[in-house]
């Protein structure tokens, strides 16, 4: 308390300085006068009385000084002086200040932006209380694990076998019933549905959840109530829904009257009972929230699957995500062991184990970020970007350090004078560091502003063109803290070395006129090595940019095998509850016919998968006379990529038929089964044989009819541009028992926006509850598939350009300084008869030498680092000599161009002036 009071009093005194100084003067004056009076009263003459008074008092000046130190906050005051002086210095060198602050702002802005994106994509946690208590149940199995039927989140493991975070409903119920290891286990499944909200049909994400889901996550609604265990008691019961804050905002304008309204979900009417809090995204994902939360018991109604349409009794299909909170007092390892034992018992109780089947092993995975899906897509590119922005920042620091070094040498005289006048070196160091921290603060403020405006543009680069969900990158205290920390760090990083050198100035030598030449060598050398370092960093950034840009070029130069221009795509997903097998095929036939009749439509087709969308499906492919066992022995695949397509598919996509015929009106549900294969499949499965007329089966049922190959088409890319066109076969969708959702391809010169209204009308005239999903062009689809790659190319190219600009400034600064320092020497050379061209060549040679050293170091570092991004490259190797050569050449040119002006200035020096100047 006492010390705080003192601090406040002392701080307050800073603002009344003059007044207090006057008081002190008066008081000291009074003291002396009082003493003089007293001495005079004792009989001393006036002169002696005064002399004695002053002697008894001690040093007046010293007292005054001690008093002032005691009164104010000398440390704060001297910092204030440093800042004021620093401001004057920065204003005096406005050009330098502008360049330094701008380059710092760009570098810090880039770092802040990438950091805020990385934090959101890779580190943001679920918006629920205590997310770190959450654990996701997962299992690992070897290649003969008993689990075969899976829907959802599973993957093959690198060492073989499967891993998944999905369970069957009966297993979940058993686990939950016998669970003592964790607090309550709750379950959820995210799915897509057609929902009609206030008369508008749209595609929506839905979370089907167990009744204890909200209680387990400890989430309360904004309004209304959440789903309760009683809503989930009986299959088919609980026609209620909790909606997301986003849907509430979009469709109901945040009106409380939304409660009690109904939404038609895949044909079933659900009543809205509550609205989730803003920011809640469900348990699965941190970025976006499903719009609807419905009881798990709705599954048979809204998305029938499996036998009788229900998964609630299905033992063999694993599909449900299970999560829980750790129980206090039970360690994670104990919980994992207990649940693992329980899982094996539950599997034995619900599934039939065949000989050779193995048990999965249960593991608890962190649940604080849901399934962290974003990791797979974004982890590597975001880390690459973090590294590159780090390099850019380092580069900017080196740049400023360099300029400061050069300026520090100019200010050596000032430093010497201040040292001679009694300033300590520590004081000088502090002064110079204050200046660079102020510079950093300027750059940091600029960077913060830049980051604020750019942060939402970059996720825009990372999401596709047609979806309404946009990543929203928050800009909060953690971003601000990061930015401040980076700023402080850079200020110290680029400020310390120059300040150190400058504060080491010798009093005597610098005050003598010839000081410049004695210290120039050392200073020059350190400046040049910083420039070489800068060039090496630039080299890294330019090579990185080159590789990603070339990847982009290579991707856009790929011959995909069909014409992606003027092609509109959209999807129709008939819900199985309303369109049972057979009915769905008929629906697609009607739609195909009606859309083909629309004005402006050249041709229309449909397929089971969109191309270049990272989607694929495959099925068994067994030519007549072969067996699966034999195929397996000869190392041939059992399954091939396939696509169920409309009769006009090849015409619409403009895929040439190389032999035989295309599909046509003669291929109907009742006619003989036919297929078209692509050239790659013909070569792979019918080598040296004329494939047309051959027959095959696409399943393992020996009773199913043979399918006859009637045509061979050219190869096309399938799921992505990166893999070679795979072997594929095509079947008419009209010959299938059921097809479910299909993607439509419409060749039309119209833009999607112009085409949409009529299309929606046609679809609505057939079924009002059927949404047109993801209307986009094939080009947009291809861009979206490589969206992250495109963002990476654009950003790294930007960083590369920034690096070049910074290198340019760095080289110019150092060479210009070097020439200015050597004015005297160059003047003498010219006076002694050196040709101006020689002088110019001398300067250029010097910078060329620096550039070469930097480029060599950069090449070395690049070959070490580009390996790490090999998997992200396409059509270009990590050691691509062309990219390396072009980057080297570019930096060489930049180096020469930046030193051209200083070189000309050197050649233009007038010998007489230069010598007299000294």
């Amino acid at each position, binding site marked *: 308390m006492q010390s705080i009071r003192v601090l406040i009093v002392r701080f307050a005194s800073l603002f009344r300085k003059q007044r207090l100084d006057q008081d002190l003067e008066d008081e000291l004056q009074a003291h002396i006068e009082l003493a003089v009076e*007293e001495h005079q009263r004792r009989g001393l003459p006036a002169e002696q009385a005064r002399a004695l008074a002053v002697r008894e008092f001690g040093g007046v000046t010293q007292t005054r000084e*001690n008093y002032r130190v005691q009164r104010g906050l000398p440390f704060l005051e001297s910092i204030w002086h440093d800042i004021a002086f620093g401001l004057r210095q920065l204003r005096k060198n406005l050009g330098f200040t502008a360049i330094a602050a701008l380059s710092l702002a760009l570098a810090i802005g880039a770092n802040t932006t990438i950091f805020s994106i990385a934090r959101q994509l890779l580190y943001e946690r679920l918006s629920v209380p205590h997310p770190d208590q959450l654990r996701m149940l997962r299992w690992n199995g070897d290649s003969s694990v008993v689990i075969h039927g899976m829907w959802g989140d599973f993957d093959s493991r690198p060492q073989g076998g499967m891993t998944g975070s999905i369970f069957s409903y009966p297993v979940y119920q058993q686990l939950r019933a016998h669970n003592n290891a964790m607090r309550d286990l709750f379950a959820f499944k995210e799915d897509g549905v057609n929902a009609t909200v206030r008369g508008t049909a749209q595609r929506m994400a839905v979370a089907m959840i167990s009744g204890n889901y909200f209680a387990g996550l400890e989430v309360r609604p904004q309004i209304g109530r959440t789903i309760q265990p009683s809503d989930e008691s009986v299959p088919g019961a609980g026609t209620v829904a909790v909606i997301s804050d986003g849907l509430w905002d979009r469709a109901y304008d945040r009106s409380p009257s939304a409660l009690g309204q109904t939404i038609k979900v895949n044909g079933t009417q659900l009543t809205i009972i509550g609205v989730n809090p803003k920011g809640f995204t469900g348990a699965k994902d941190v970025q976006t929230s499903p719009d609807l939360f419905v009881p798990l018991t709705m599954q048979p109604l809204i998305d029938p699957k499996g036998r009788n349409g229900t998964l609630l009794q299905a033992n063999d299909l694993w599909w449900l995500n299970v999560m829980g909170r750790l129980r206090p007092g039970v360690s994670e390892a104990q919980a994992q062991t207990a649940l693992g034992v329980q899982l094996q018992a539950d599997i034995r109780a619900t599934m039939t184990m065949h000989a050779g089947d193995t048990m999965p092993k249960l593991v608890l995975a962190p649940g604080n970020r849901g399934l962290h899906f974003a990791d797979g897509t974004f982890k590597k590119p975001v880390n690459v970007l973090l590294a590159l922005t780090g390099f850019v920042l380092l580069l900017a620091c080196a740049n400023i350090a360099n300029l400061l070094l050069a300026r520090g040498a100019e200010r050596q005289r000032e430093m010497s004078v201040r040292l001679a006048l009694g300033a300590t070196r520590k004081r000088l160091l502090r002064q110079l560091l204050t200046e660079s921290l102020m510079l950093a603060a300027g750059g940091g403020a600029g960077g913060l502003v830049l980051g604020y405006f750019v942060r939402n543009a970059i996720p825009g680069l990372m999401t596709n063109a047609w979806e309404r969900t946009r990543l929203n990158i928050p800009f909060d205290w953690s971003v601000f803290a990061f930015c401040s920390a980076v700023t402080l760090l850079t200020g110290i990083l680029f400020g310390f070395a120059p300040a150190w050198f400058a504060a080491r100035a010798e009093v005597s030598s610098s005050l003598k006129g010839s000081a410049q030449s004695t210290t120039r060598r050392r200073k020059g050398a350190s400046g040049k090595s910083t420039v070489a370092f800068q060039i090496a960093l630039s080299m890294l950034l330019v090579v990185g940019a080159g590789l990603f840009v070339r990847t982009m070029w290579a991707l856009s130069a790929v011959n995909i095998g069909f014409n992606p221009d003027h092609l509109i795509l959209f999807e129709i997903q008939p819900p199985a509850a309303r369109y049972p097998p057979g009915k769905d095929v008929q629906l697609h036939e009607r739609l195909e016919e009606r859309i083909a009749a629309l004005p402006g439509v050249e041709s229309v087709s449909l397929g089971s998968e969109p191309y270049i969308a990272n989607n694929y499906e495959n099925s068994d492919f067994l030519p007549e006379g072969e067996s699966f066992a034999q195929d397996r022995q000869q190392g041939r695949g059992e399954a091939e990529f396939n696509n169920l397509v409309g009769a006009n598919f090849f015409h619409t996509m403009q895929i040439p038929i190389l032999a035989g015929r295309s599909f046509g009106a003669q291929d109907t549900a009742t006619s003989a089964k036919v297929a078209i294969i692509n050239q790659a499949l013909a070569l792979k499965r019918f080598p040296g044989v004329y494939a047309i007329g051959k027959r095959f089966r696409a399943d393992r049922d020996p009773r199913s009819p043979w399918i006859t190959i009637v045509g061979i088409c050219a190869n096309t890319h399938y799921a992505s541009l990166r893999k070679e066109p795979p072997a594929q076969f095509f079947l008419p969708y009209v010959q299938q028992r059921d097809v479910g959702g299909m993607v439509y391809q419409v060749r039309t010169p119209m833009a999607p926006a112009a085409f949409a209204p009529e299309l929606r009308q046609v679809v609505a005239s057939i079924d009002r509850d059927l949404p047109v999903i993801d209307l986009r062009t094939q080009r947009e689809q291809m861009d979206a598939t490589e969206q992250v790659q495109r963002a990476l190319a654009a950003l790294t190219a930007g960083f590369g350009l920034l690096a070049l600009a910074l290198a340019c400034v760095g080289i110019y600064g150092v060479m210009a300084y070097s020439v200015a320092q050597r004015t005297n020497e160059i003047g003498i050379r010219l006076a002694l008869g050196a040709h101006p061209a020689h002088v110019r060549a001398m300067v250029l040679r010097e910078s060329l030498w620096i550039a070469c050293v930097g480029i060599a170091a950069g090449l070395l570092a690049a070959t070490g680092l580009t390996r790490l991004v090999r998997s992200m490259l396409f059509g270009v190797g990590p050691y691509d000599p062309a990219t390396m050569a072009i980057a080297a050449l570019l930096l060489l040119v930049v180096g020469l161009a930046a030193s051209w002006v200083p070189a000309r200035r050197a050649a233009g020096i007038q010998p007489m002036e230069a010598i007299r100047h000294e």
Partner: protein
Amino acid sequence: MPEHKSDVLQGTLDLMVLKTLESMGALHGYRIARRIEQVSANALSLNQGTIYPALLRLEQRGWVAAKWGISETGRRARFYSLTRSGQKQIQKETENWERIAATMARFLASSR
């Protein structure tokens, strides 16, 4: 004047000032300095000026209050007086000082 003068120990000057104000009431700086010299019988080597930073320190801590007034000789001077918390501080410092003095005395006695 005695042959030997002691330096003023850090912190003791504060207590001397407080004690002076306690016994004499409000005083200006010169009178405080003179009083300390008289009481110590000129045994301390004290620059009169050093009491001003000390007075400021006491004022900042709230132990003394200062205001301008007129001296006995009609001169404008700054008068210092003890505050309530200054009173308490005297008690604290006195106890502290006596404890130290007693301890020192025991040490000096035992080592003799």
